[in-house]
């Protein structure tokens, strides 16, 4: 290690990396159903019709597929959760026979004929929707044309699922930790491929192949290995006048001394990982680059020292700013930290453009998950960015993941 603050951070994370109980997927789904039912009751909603993949997965356990948006949309499963019922309805191809759901044929709600099928299931399960409060996350054009929810008092299912999933169960935390551990293992195996002359796609290909060998079924994001400019003006023009990341465009060839920002996310039982590191190609980091990393460690330690139930997002932001002498050490279009779960970024969002009043009101509670992703930028030197996932506990926090180091920095 580097000594000093990098060692302090590694020790801090290791101390809070407690053993996870084995995942019980059935219990996890039952507990999520219970939380959705509680939210239906609290928000006065009679039924929730869910089309957005992560929402369907949360409600039913239907598997996440690492496919393009067009496939995910046309072949989408649909969930229907009815207040007072003991299990959800799932309209899908039913490849997983272990799910405890009321099964219905796949509906194809993107197609006019499919929207009519969906309306039939809704009528059969819920009865006429007119005058009743029904939550939905998204309606397809075909559903609008077919008037599937005509006359219903429509509530936003994003609020329903958002409230239910804000604090995670132990099984959910274990899924995130396992996703992160596998993601880290794959990165550890392929970091050596990021050599001078390698392309982004070659390194990404090695990573994706390794994931498959590790038994990972779904990759969630085209793996990012983005060589960063050393000054903001050398990079793409941005609306924030800060550095552009992650652009996900092009297939750069790595050169000696390139500072590569790495970001990836995979799925495990419906839960996302979020891996972030900074690599240097073909040489050790120089003193200025090491300085960026050490300041990043300073910010991490400072934030983790104040993280506990009852702390506000604003307090986390202030701790991060104090550690850098007042600069906001994160990308302005993102956050100091974001939640992760069935979505790769979800609440709680800390330090976003939702503003300081929002951060003042956002109070940490047990079961909340934070992906801390501070960024240290020094124009002319470049930037250091990495990510760690922690979960808020009854008395502080725990580290989710395997304790992946920070080579070549530490």
């Amino acid at each position, binding site marked *: 290690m580097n000594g000093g603050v990098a060692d302090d951070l590694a020790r801090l994370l290791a101390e809070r990396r407690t053993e996870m109980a084995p995942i019980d997927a059935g219990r996890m789904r039952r507990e999520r159903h219970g939380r959705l039912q509680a939210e239906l009751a609290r928000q006065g909603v009679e039924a929730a019709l869910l089309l*957005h*993949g*992560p929402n369907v997965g949360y409600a039913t356990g239907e598997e996440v597929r*690492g*496919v*393009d*948006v*067009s*496939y*995910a*949309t*046309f072949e989408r499963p649909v969930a229907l959760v009815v207040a007072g019922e003991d299990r959800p309805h799932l309209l899908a191809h039913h490849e997983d026979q272990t799910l405890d759901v009321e099964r219905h044929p796949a509906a*194809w709600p*993107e*197609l*006019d004929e499919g929207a009519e099928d969906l309306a039939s299931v809704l009528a059969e399960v819920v009865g006429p929707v007119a005058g009743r409060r029904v939550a939905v*996350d*998204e*309606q*397809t*054009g*075909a559903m609008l*044309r077919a008037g599937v929810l005509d006359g219903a008092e429509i*509530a*936003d*299912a*994003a609020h329903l699922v958002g409230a239910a999933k804000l604090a995670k169960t132990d099984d959910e935390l274990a899924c995130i930790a396992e996703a992160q551990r596998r993601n880290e293992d794959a990165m550890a195996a392929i970091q050596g491929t990021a050599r001078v002359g390698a*392309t982004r*796609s070659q390194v*990404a*290909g*090695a990573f*994706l*192949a*390794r994931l*498959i*060998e590790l*038994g990972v079924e*779904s990759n*969630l*994001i085209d*793996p990012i290995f983005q060589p960063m400019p050393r000054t903001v003006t050398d*990079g*793409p*023009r*941005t609306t*924030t006048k800060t550095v*552009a990341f*992650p*652009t*996900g*465009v*092009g*297939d750069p060839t790595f050169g000696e001394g390139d500072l590569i920002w790495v970001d990836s996310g995979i*799925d495990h039982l419906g839960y996302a990982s979020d891996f972030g590191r900074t690599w240097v190609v073909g040489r050790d980091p120089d003193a200025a680059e090491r300085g960026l990393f050490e300041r990043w460690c300073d910010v991490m330690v400072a934030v983790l020292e104040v993280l506990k139930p009852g702390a506000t997002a604003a307090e986390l932001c202030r701790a991060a700013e104090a550690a850098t002498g007042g600069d906001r050490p994160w990308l302005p279009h*993102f956050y100091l930290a974001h939640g992760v779960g069935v979505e790769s970024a979800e609440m709680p*969002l800390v330090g*976003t*453009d*939702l503003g300081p009043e929002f951060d003042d009101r956002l109070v940490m509670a047990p079961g909340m998950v934070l992906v801390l992703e501070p960024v240290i930028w020094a124009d002319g030197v470049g930037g250091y960015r990495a990510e760690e996932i922690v979960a808020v506990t009854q008395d502080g926090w725990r580290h989710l993941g395997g304790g992946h180091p920070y080579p070549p920095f530490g």
Partner: protein
Amino acid sequence: MATVGLDVLVLGRRDSVAYATGARSLWTAGSRPFGPACVLVAAARSVHLLSTWDEGVPREVPFEHLYGVTWNGAILAGALAAIPGLATAMRVAVEALSPGFERMALRLAPAAELVPADDLMRAVRALKLPAEVARIRAAAAVVGAAMEAAGAALAGDAGPVAARSAAWEAAAGMGVTAPTSGVAVWPAEPASGSRFHVDVGFLVDGYEGGLGRTLPGSDDHAPVVAAQRRLVEACRPGATAADLRSAAPGGATRWCVRGSGMGFETPVLSATLGRGEVIEEHMVLSVELELDGLRRRDLVTVGSETTDVL
């Protein structure tokens, strides 16, 4: 937009935005909640795009027309309100609708009628330009190489995991790491475990290549090859789902014909879907058939004289 009398079109999906603007962006898996990722205004012929940077944004979209990623609905509403022509729009079309965007749209364009435009986008996208067919051909070459790599792994008895891994590495070797359907390898003969269905779908410069085979060796199996040829030949301008049902062999476990372009597209015709759909010249279709435990999927172009496998 002019033909159907739309003042504003709001798109949310990455593939729709790419079609309308040419913008390239980071690939992520799965569905996204609907949000205004792109706004097209008919009167000004202007395109406004949700992007924090100009990387991947074509020159036709000026920097001033970018609105950055935001978590704050009020900031987003402010950015949209500044788009000339939105506030006075009478017909605003959306490709899907979330409760949140419906509320926002009604505030931003108070006089407007909100109408679905997924059908408009699909109709436009279904008929491919020659340049699009050229992109799809290039994508077909990538999936061909990926299939070959999977086949070599299976022929060498390396197993389905190694076959998937090899297919991904082959695509990555050609600079491609974004899937459409990705690489699936599953047993064709669960009892013996000697044959596998392999299906490959990758996104190459925004367009999809797709290919399905049963390996090792379904090419030596005349009945499925002949049946797939009949199904492909039935994909003629004017053909309906009923025509394809007649062409599909009675013993087929499954068949599906659907649009392919910037991913999964319409029309979708199968044993149960496709009411009212008609195949037209210039469509590119994914034609899939499974018969006697052997499966084939090919991309085909529908021409005036012939339907050709890519």
